[in-house]
């Protein structure tokens, strides 16, 4: 009887380890093909994306697709961004040790986790309570002590922890809330997507330069980034 129990436990362990290894392999492949294979070259970003277990940030029903080159639904009309977008948005704000970053729209928490691998502190605000709770749980589970998640209205930013070196807005908006711009350090960067995650998206980079605020349209992306200028 004991032998049988041992055998079952051993088999279970084997399955668990091979599943975990499977995800790790997929993650490495994801970074090699979808992130580094395109134009994300920042080492810190690539390392971070290699280490964050993306499959734990998606609903169970979506785990099989966690490392696919596309956004996935996480419920409440929200999505976890395509891995490439997460990588690109991380790289574009130039994350470094010692920085504090504000994220508007925690969603699954994946972007915050990737940022947390690089910068000192990540403050993330989610307006949908169950998503905020879920993200908080997973951060705890994965021991991301440098991420703080708040359920609330992202419009006001997070005054008591401002100013921020960078702000990542994960959901498109018709306007950028004035308090967010006020909480961005001079020279700080804000990145924001425009458009629906399932359709054509374009990333915008907002930079504070003195009294002026400069925006730059980055390349448009969807499941696969458009390579318009390359092919012209």
């Amino acid at each position, binding site marked *: 009887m004991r032998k049988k129990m041992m055998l079952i436990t051993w088999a279970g362990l084997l399955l668990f380890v091979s599943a975990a290894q499977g995800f790790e392999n997929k993650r490495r492949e994801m970074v090699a093909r979808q992130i580094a294979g395109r134009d994300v070259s920042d080492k810190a970003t690539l390392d971070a994306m290699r280490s964050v277990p993306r499959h734990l940030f998606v609903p169970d029903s979506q785990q099989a697709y966690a490392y696919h080159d596309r956004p996935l639904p996480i419920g409440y009309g929200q999505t976890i961004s395509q891995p490439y977008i997460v990588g690109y948005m991380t790289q574009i704000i130039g994350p470094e040790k010692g920085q504090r970053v504000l994220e508007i729209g925690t969603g699954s928490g994946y972007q915050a986790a990737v940022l947390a691998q690089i910068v000192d502190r990540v403050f993330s605000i989610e*307006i949908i309570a169950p998503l905020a709770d879920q993200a908080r749980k997973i951060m705890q589970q994965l021991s991301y002590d440098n991420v703080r998640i708040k359920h609330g209205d992202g419009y006001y930013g997070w005054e008591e922890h401002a100013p921020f070196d960078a702000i990542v807005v994960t959901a*498109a908006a018709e306007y950028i809330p*004035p308090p967010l711009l006020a909480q961005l350090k001079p020279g700080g960067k804000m990145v924001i997507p425009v458009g629906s995650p399932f359709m*054509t998206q*374009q990333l915008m980079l907002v930079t504070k330069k003195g009294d*002026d605020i400069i925006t730059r349209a980055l390349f*448009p992306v969807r*499941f696969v980034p*458009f390579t318009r200028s390359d092919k012209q």
Partner: protein
Amino acid sequence: MTSNKGIFRHQIALGLVSAAVIGFQLALMWYFSNTQWSHFAFMVISVALLGFGASGTFITVCRPWIMKHSNHVIAGAMLSSALFMTICISLCQWDPFRLDAMLLFSHPMHVFRLSATYLVLFLPFFCSGLAIGLILITHMENIGGFYFVNLVGSGIGGMGTLFFFWIFTPSLLPGAIAVLPFAAAIVFGQKNRILHIFTLVVFGVMVFFFIVPPALHVSEYKGISKTMQLPKARIIDSRPTPFGFIQVVASPVLRHAPGVSLQFDQKIPRVDAFFVNGEWLGPVFDIQQQRMAGGRHILDNSPMGLAFQMQDPKTILCLSSGTGSQVSQAVSHGPDHITALEKNPVIPQLMHSLYGTGSVYSHPKVKVVPKDDYTYLLSSRQDHDLIVLPVLDAFGGSSGLYALNEQYHLTQQAFARMWDRLSDNGMISVAAWMDYPVRTPLRLVATLVSVLESNGIDHLENHIVAVRSWNMINFVVKKSAVTPQEIALVREFALEMNFDPVLLPDIGKEERIRFNKLQDQDFFTFVDQLMGDTKADFIRRYEFNIAPAVENKPYFSQFLKLGHLFHLGEFFTAASIPFLELGYLLLMMTFIQVSIFAVVLIVLPLVVRRWEGSHKWWTALYFASLGLGFMGIEMVLIQRFVLYFGNPLYAAAAVISGVLVFSGLGSYLSSHLSSNRRTIMGCLLSIAAGAIVYMVVLTPLLQQTIDLAFPVKMVFGLVFIAPLSLLMGMPFPLGLRLAQRTNPLNISWAWSINGCCSVISVVLATIIAIEFGFVAVMAAGACMYGTAWAATFLMSPT
């Protein structure tokens, strides 16, 4: 032989089921437009409508058994139809079947769900078609009268459902309509124990669903669903109306400031928001707080403030004013008079009842006109200092979701009328969201340039001004040349707001990207080409269709060039195409699906029964042509009258019921005619000739009479519709009678062919309208009647 009383009962039952089919179709369209998106609704329902054609195939394949038990089958089909109409919404919302159109292209599971939805919706149409088809087939001796009842029943069903739209919510309406086939089964009356038990079961199910109605599960990606996720979001009012299901949402964190300047440092105002069929219609700005602390309206801090920066207009016309956000901006500038056009009369009424004097439409200087923009422009003689259009497209691009919407107010002709209605220094102001790949702003430039050119303006650059923020561009077209003082004001505005001028008489290259840099300079190159001599060549070469929309093809948001589809695939990767121009692709997908299914349904009887009966070619050609031609012509008539009445609801109601009732009369009259080749050919030739005459004279005649009073226009419209519709009701019953004499086995097959081709026709007519215009649809309709005429040569003269 059925007694007179029996015939009457059968006719009543036929009328009820016919009314139910049209009503159910409209109810489903309404339901899916609410829970998903209207183009998707069009696809799902088109495929499901093939159930009608499939019923004919079924009768043909199983004819001996069905004809033997025809009355029981008819009653059973009516009851089944009532059952499926009642439960179909709940089935579609059942978790394993629940579909989300947004995930269709990315999640294979939703392809299965789509198939399940097709099947669920197919069943009620199949059962209704079976009942109607069998009643017609079993009353061939009196087909004219029965077909009359069928058409009039359909007309009444369409009208009646529009009335029901005021009463029932989208999830309740299909179940409410199920009462009609149930009543039909009772009236039809069959003494059979199994049918009696079935009647009780269906009744029980109907009562159950009346007490416990299905909930409305809206896609979580629709605007209303996302807004309802906001803290303390609540629906403060909702109204089912034939213009759509209106919902008003309030939340303490709901704010609206489209394209507001990044220099804007004040609080963005909280608003309530209106949704129609689950999609954002607009915010409600409190008229009492129209100016922010800085003395400006919130929209004056966006590119939409450009026109007011240049001038102080005294008379303003706001097109498609919706919830009046731009009207509220106009009011804040203190003009003498504002005319706001909003074709949905419920919105101003609802705003007044919810906000009283806080509603912008209650302001003494605002006059609301419940008319379509283009109809108003065609009939109005009043001049304005400023004409304001609503922001074009959706934020971030709509990916072609509005591609099939007819937007007459954005046609070249509409802009030409706006130009005519400007005072000497008047301006047209129109904003668009920046999209990628850039389409909307370019089509707008192409349209504005063509209007200026047609008015003999040589120096275009002196009449168009545009500024751009990080996400929005606003164009102002001025009737007189822009003055140096106005140019200075535009520059001052742009500098203050961190916007960049795009078009100004003496613009510099660097000035265009001072604050908002683009990925490359292509956008400016494109705009300059459209403003220059190479316009035509550029429009021809551009990957997307950006030629100005015209009245004959009023699809401003349709950018896909079919010929460039594969090239686009190479350019942006094939996987991206559905996400660039989804609407038109859904239409093409619908066409392919219905065509394949229709061919299978039409050919199946020939294969299964190894049918070697006579007159197959005539039957196929004749009834296919009628199915294709009838709907095509009806669609053009509806389109023309939408413009004429200025209100899609009146137009649809008047034209659909007018065409069906007059066609029904035609069918009734046809029973007094001999069904010989000569009569049929004469009838078909008259329709084809009539369609060609209508093609030429209808638009000018309607435009000449567009400013008549509404009741006069209604009479005038029905007089227009009557002759052609009357004739169009004759060929089908005449053809069936001819088939009855030559080969009765062909009758149910003819029913199948006609049903399938009618479905194809609606989809095909939309494609033809987009590619070639409505005139071409009318011409194609005439050709189809011509084909039916030619097919008649396959019959013997007697």
